[in-house]
């Protein structure tokens, strides 16, 4: 099927990208979208049939952030079998880092006109900025923190958990406990992150007004670019020998150990990378939706992310992207069209996908069934056969 000798002679990146049909299509769409949508939104007149309204740009931008988040979950769940039910925490932390920058950018334009303190601090009678807010008036620092903080949390959490060989549902549940604890912590006003109301009422980013169509289009393009880059990184990881080790860990962890690999380091690496990606997604998300609040830490959201991946097709990366788009578009569509009954549809969709499309939507498309996901899928089929006899 695959000629490895051929493959390894090529420049690696181009080599494995060419192998990856779904990825090529995804990247092509992203490139096309990042060029066409700003044009359609900014240059075409409102009356034009191809004009893309602003709300659509923001909406698509939001989906892209969710897609990146789903990608990060697929990287660990699809390829390493780590089912994180707390990935929303990394997303939210990235979002908070960006939110803090945007909050500092407001400056004295807040309602109390205090140049040093965000409104909610003035309001709580705080007299000076808490130390952990230092530096967030600098964009580069906020961006670094948006990646570093989730990465650090993932590193510490992962170090403890993987070293102690916490696996399976135990790991899933403690990731859930982690995000739940953060949810409660961020709800507290005393934490200095705006409590339940979170951070909101942002004005501008790098001097560009967040309300302007141009900035929206710019954020959309940035989301496309980062999704594309993270996809390439994720694909690079999964195609490397490290990626093979990850899949091996997913399928037979103890075999990998007895083969001499330090499983915990591999898991730690990929978990941290994934958390950084989630953090980037959060940082891109916040300026586009205009609010970050502890709701993003909600355990239910983290479960939903996993569902996006499952709906799209686990272990394929592009499937996760597709899943995030499908579920979120369905949510947008049904909450508007049938607000009283949409949960029936969404719930039904999840049940139907697990029962009838165990490989996700992507697995139902024949052209993709044979790509990277194949081995996983055949494994599933086998297990399904074994279990289905019950």
């Amino acid at each position, binding site marked *: 099927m695959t000629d490895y000798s051929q493959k390894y002679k090529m420049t690696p990146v181009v080599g494995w990208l060419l192998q990856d049909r779904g990825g090529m299509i*995804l990247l092509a769409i992203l490139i096309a979208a990042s060029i066409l949508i700003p044009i359609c939104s900014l240059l075409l007149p409102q009356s034009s049939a191809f004009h893309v*309204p602003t709300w659509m740009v923001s*909406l*698509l931008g939001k989906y892209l952030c969710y897609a990146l988040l789903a990608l990060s979950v697929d990287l660990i769940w699809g390829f390493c079998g780590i089912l994180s039910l707390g990935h929303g925490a990394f997303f939210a932390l990235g979002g908070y880092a960006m939110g803090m920058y945007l909050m500092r950018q407001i400056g004295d334009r807040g309602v*109390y*006109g205090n140049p040093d303190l965000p409104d909610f601090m003035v309001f*709580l009678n705080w007299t000076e900025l808490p130390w952990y807010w230092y530096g967030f008036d600098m964009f580069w620092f906020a961006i670094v923190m948006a990646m570093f903080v989730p990465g650090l949390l993932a590193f510490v959490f992962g170090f403890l958990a993987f070293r102690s060989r916490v696996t399976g549902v135990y790991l899933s549940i403690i990731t859930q406990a982690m995000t739940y604890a953060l949810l409660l912590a961020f709800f507290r006003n005393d934490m200095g992150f705006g409590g339940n109301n979170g951070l*909101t009422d942002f004005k501008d980013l790098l001097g560009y007004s967040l309300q302007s169509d141009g900035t929206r289009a710019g954020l959309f393009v940035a989301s496309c670019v980062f999704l594309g880059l993270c996809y390439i990184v994720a694909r690079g990881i999964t195609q490397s020998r490290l990626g093979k080790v990850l899949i091996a860990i997913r399928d037979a962890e103890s075999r990998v150990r007895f083969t001499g690999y330090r499983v915990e380091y591999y898991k730690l690496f990929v978990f941290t990378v994934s958390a950084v990606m989630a953090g980037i997604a959060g940082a891109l998300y916040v300026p586009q939706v205009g609010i970050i609040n502890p709701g993003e830490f909600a355990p239910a959201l983290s479960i939903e992310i996993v569902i996006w991946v499952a709906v799209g097709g686990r272990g394929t990366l592009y499937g996760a992207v597709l899943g995030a788009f499908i579920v979120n578009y369905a949510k947008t569509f049904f*909450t508007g069209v049938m607000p009283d009954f949409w949960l029936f549809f969404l719930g039904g969709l999840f049940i139907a996908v697990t029962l009838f499309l165990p490989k996700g939507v992507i697995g139902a498309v024949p052209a993709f069934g044979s790509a990277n996901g194949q081995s996983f899928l055949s494994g599933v089929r086998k297990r399904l056969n074994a279990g289905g006899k019950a």
Partner: protein
Amino acid sequence: MNKKLQALMGAGAMALSVMTMSAAQAADTIKVGVLHSLSGTMAISETTLKDTVLMLVDDLNKNGGLLGKQVEAVVVDPASDWPLFAEKARELIEKDQVDVVFGCWTSVSRKSVLPVFEELNSMLFYPVQYEGEESSRNVFYTGAAPNQQAIPAVDYLMSEDGGGAERIVLLGTDYVYPRTTNKILRSYLNDKGIADADIMENYTPFGHSDWQSIVADVKAFASAGKKTAVVSTINGDANVPFYKELANQGIKAEDIPVVAFSVGEEELAGIDTAPLVGHLAAWNYFQSVEADANTAFIDKWHAFIGDDARVTNDPMEATYIGFNMWKQAVEQAGTTDVDAVRQAMYGQEVANLTGGTAVMNTNHHLSKPVLIGEVQDDGQFDVVWETDGTVVGDAWSDFLPESAKLTADWTYPWVCGNCEKPMY
């Protein structure tokens, strides 16, 4: 070529067709957006308000509509998900092109949609009591500000009839509304000569269900010999277990009265209130108030919802007032144009369901009477005290040093939601 692009194009096409459709319809109908959560944690409170708006729209249409047009309600479900509120608000305004939106319950949902309404210059009617400290050109606040609820309630507790409380427990859910209200109250209580040692503040997580320790603490705090009262800003879900624990631990209203700002008829519907008789709530409306307008409203509500057991509550009245004010303002302006309607809103009067009239002020808050009610054994409230006249809602509290300086006034020459000096 590939599914995703097709799906994307499809989505775009669908959105476009909806837009053109709505543009075509705009000539015939006036659209009213309803932005209340119908699922998730807030559905329990917000669903009722959605039904209220639908009832009001229905009623308006039966009476010939508005400006000779039919009114159409566009209902969406933001699902108690705050970023989704912003998304849905944008969708309502940009895609469905509604003329006005009635919606939101929690402060965070309002904060989330606020920039959207300001950016797109649309209009939101917010019908729930809240912590104040906000004034937006695009939002009309028809619920109570802290000075229309919390301060009169504490005044009552400290009055002779209220029991002459000298020690106050401030219980709240840990988020902005309780924190702010309690901050205002603490400052107010200090002014009234109650020392910090006689104030106990306690916060609990959302949906807190185990109140044993806290109720026991309150009892202990109250055993010091001074008359003690509890001010509760406990939110939504947590109230039922709180009151059940209160009843079971036998905290009698005459010993330790509890006054709540977030507990109305709807919240009590889930509790057996017999052991809670005498505990208090402060609102601008109670279902039990005997007035013709109120009886008519309740009858209409029962007919609309098809269930005589359903109760009415304060946010419903706030929705009612807001809706009718908007209707009158549209009629006066002769258009649904947001800027014209906004100007017409100021000074607009609507009869309260409980008697008297509510007036919209230029700070976008209402002047309303304040009522204190005692819980009765049938789950209703009996009004034991009310303000002499109406109270003007304060956007900026006088009891917080930073906000006391600010003024909100949206008429020329102020045109400002948070200024210290007039702006021109």
